[in-house]
């Protein structure tokens, strides 16, 4: 372990990482956000999921420093009387889980489809047509379809319990073609290289060539688009909330918090929109900045000539 750390410290990776203040700060911010999100039950002063602690009479209190603010609620309260600070922490946790889960699902489907269609010519046109059909369906249509199916299977009233996995499934299924296309493109590029030819000549099986030789080479574009995809997934969830198909009101994600704040844009309760908005934009921003950095790192050609 110590050895590993030492190696990590002396590696190019950490060298460039520690030299780049943007990467460093982004990483620090992301770390703080993720840790805060996942330790929400420990650090949040209130539990927004426990309805017994919520009082409607506390609703729409401004942040603590404002004239009418309450010391109890640092960043004020939302329309339900939940503390913004605590609700945002819990919401961020859900957003991150949905974002990561959906991207993981997208990547899994996308990589498999991309590999198959890039490597097996017979499957290519079929799979890519499926991807086309998929792309022309927006997330919204998928959400309605899958949402309705789930409701039939699990019963309408249980929505709250299945909402998060459901959204992961919806966003995962809706946006995998991005991965498939990316992977396919790099498979096609990779397939023409000599070492693949060589591997084929020495009689390695297709599966092995795909898995051991082609896949690793497609990973950097996958990593690069993953950052954008995480951001997109979180925003898709927000968009679904905007159309009434996202996380339920009592388990809000950051996206649905912003959406519910949407109504408050012209009223004076700016904190209901602005705080989750800033948090969401910050979260996505640091993910994207790190993604940029990773791309630059993984594509050293750009710098090393």
């Amino acid at each position, binding site marked *: 372990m110590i050895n590993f750390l030492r190696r990590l410290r002396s590696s190019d990776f950490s060298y460039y990482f520690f030299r780049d203040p943007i990467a460093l700060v982004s990483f620090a911010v992301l770390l703080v956000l993720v840790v805060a999100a996942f330790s929400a039950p420990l650090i949040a002063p209130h539990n927004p999921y426990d*309805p017994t602690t919520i009082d*409607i009479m506390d609703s729409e209190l401004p942040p603590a420093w404002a004239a009418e603010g309450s010391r109890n609620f640092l960043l004020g309260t939302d329309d*339900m*009387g939940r503390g913004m600070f605590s609700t945002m922490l819990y919401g961020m946790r859900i957003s991150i889980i949905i974002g990561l889960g959906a991207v993981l699902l997208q990547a899994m489907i996308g990589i498999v489809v991309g590999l198959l269609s890039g490597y097996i010519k017979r499957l290519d046109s079929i799979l890519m047509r499926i991807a086309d059909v998929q792309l022309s369906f927006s997330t919204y249509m998928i959400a309605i379809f899958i949402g309705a199916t789930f409701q039939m299977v699990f019963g309408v009233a249980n929505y*709250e319990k299945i909402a998060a996995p459901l959204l992961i499934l919806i966003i995962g299924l809706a946006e995998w073609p991005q991965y498939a296309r990316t992977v396919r493109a790099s498979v096609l590029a990779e397939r023409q290289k000599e070492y693949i030819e060589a591997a084929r000549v020495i009689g390695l099986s297709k599966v092995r060539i795909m898995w051991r030789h082609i896949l690793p080479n497609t990973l950097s574009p996958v990593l690069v688009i993953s950052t954008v995809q995480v951001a997109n997934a979180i925003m898709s969830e927000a968009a679904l909330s905007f159309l009434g198909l996202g996380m*339920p009101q009592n388990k809000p994600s950051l996206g649905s918090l912003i959406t519910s704040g949407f109504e408050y844009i*012209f*009223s004076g309760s700016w904190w209901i929109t602005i705080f989750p908005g800033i948090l969401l934009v910050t979260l996505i921003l640091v993910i994207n900045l790190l993604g940029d950095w990773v791309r630059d790192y993984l594509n050293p050609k750009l710098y090393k000539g």
Partner: protein
Amino acid sequence: MKRMIVRLSLVLAVTLVAWGTSVNAATLKLAMDADPVSLDPHVQLSAGMLQYAHMVFDPLVRWSKDGGLEPRLAEKWEQINPTTTRFYLRKGVKFHSGNELSADDVVFTLARLKKSEDYKGLFEYFTEAKAVDSHTVDLITREPYGLVLAMATYIFPLDHKFYSGKDEQNGKMKDVIIKTDYSFANFNESGTGPFKVTGREQGVKTTFVRFGDYWDPNTGNVSEIILTPISEPPTRVAALLSGDVDFIMPVPPTDLERVKKTDGLQLVTMSGSRIITFQLNQKRRPEFANAKVRQAMAYAYNNVGVAKKIMKGFATPAAQNSPRGYQGHNAALQPRYDLARAKELMKEAGYEKGFSCTMIAPNNRYVNDAKIAQAFVTMMSKIKIKVTLKTMPKAQYWDQYDAQVADIQMIGWHSDTEDSANFFEYLNMCPDKETGRGQYNSGNYCNPEVDRLTLAANGETDNAKRSVMLRSIEQILFDDAAFIPLHWQNLSWASKKNMNTEEIINVMNFPYFGDLNIQ
């Protein structure tokens, strides 16, 4: 020469100014949450269609602001026997087509109403309209009926000459009512109202122009109305704030303050008559069959808090169905939020430890519906009832509601007859598929006494006696906690300051745009 130029330009300037102001003063840019679904007033019974009907058609009588009735196409009326009311029609009233209004048009209209899927229920007590002479008509009911005049507000005479004959486009009669497809009446109108429809792009824009031959000279000065539907509340508010429109309805509660504080705008609100309730399904959940549990829930629900906080004072907390001014309104019944009492009742009922149940609510049907439901969940948790809530768009909601998929379901109701009995018939009487009573009683509350009293009240024409009956029903429902009443949704309109908005609005939410004056 120079003088002439000066004079000419002066004249020009004056004309320009005059032209400019007259256009400004007389065109109303109106934004509502939806536009009329059809030009045929009988195709659907909904607030939107009635609002439209008041612009393009005229009723026999209409509700005045104070809840009374004022003559419109009927100048006067009298009851000539228990089942017949005679209406004397105004003379010299012209339809948009140029035809003159006569008693035949009323006969035609009532017959058509009874053919309409949406209206035939309302007009079930009416057997027919009989023309006595060209401007006198009798409305005949099957049995004595206390609400003849209230129903006359729904009779907007149609131009029967205009609507008769065969339409070339689909080969059907012009007066046929078709909900889902082309019909002559869906795309053409001839009413007697203050405005004619001159342009309509459904969902985009409807243009109304003042009807030159309108019978009532003492009305407003709006010469043109451009109605744009804007369904997103913030966008609708933005359109008003930015001056793109002159008049919006409804105003979302969150933006009431903002509109009120903005210079040059006026906000008019009024307590409404749509009751919002939660129904507790006794068939699905045995706990709800226990009156003590229902009472406990009613005690645990803070109507006043919700009305103040979530509705921003834009609702009147309710403890019964009937709003103030209705015959059944029972002034003794007040909101009863008392958490200690609620807990006590739960203990008495043997549910000290609480229980879990499910709940559904729409999220785009009533004002703040999803938020209210969410607040309800929070409040029930205080008496250890754990509620799992799912909200959904109204298109999906009603199927689920009918199927009674959850233990607690939300419903709002507005009495089309502006009468208390209507609430009981639909929401509180024992559900009966045959008669259609209790059609929206998903709580399955069933009390024979309520049924008996409601039916008796319908046949009672003595208003004082009727009022006593209706009020006692409200008392029974309250004592039984048959359902959880939340509040009556207020109504709101916002407009620029330079118009007499206050005078044209009313509790039915039918703004009489014909009477609008813009300075």
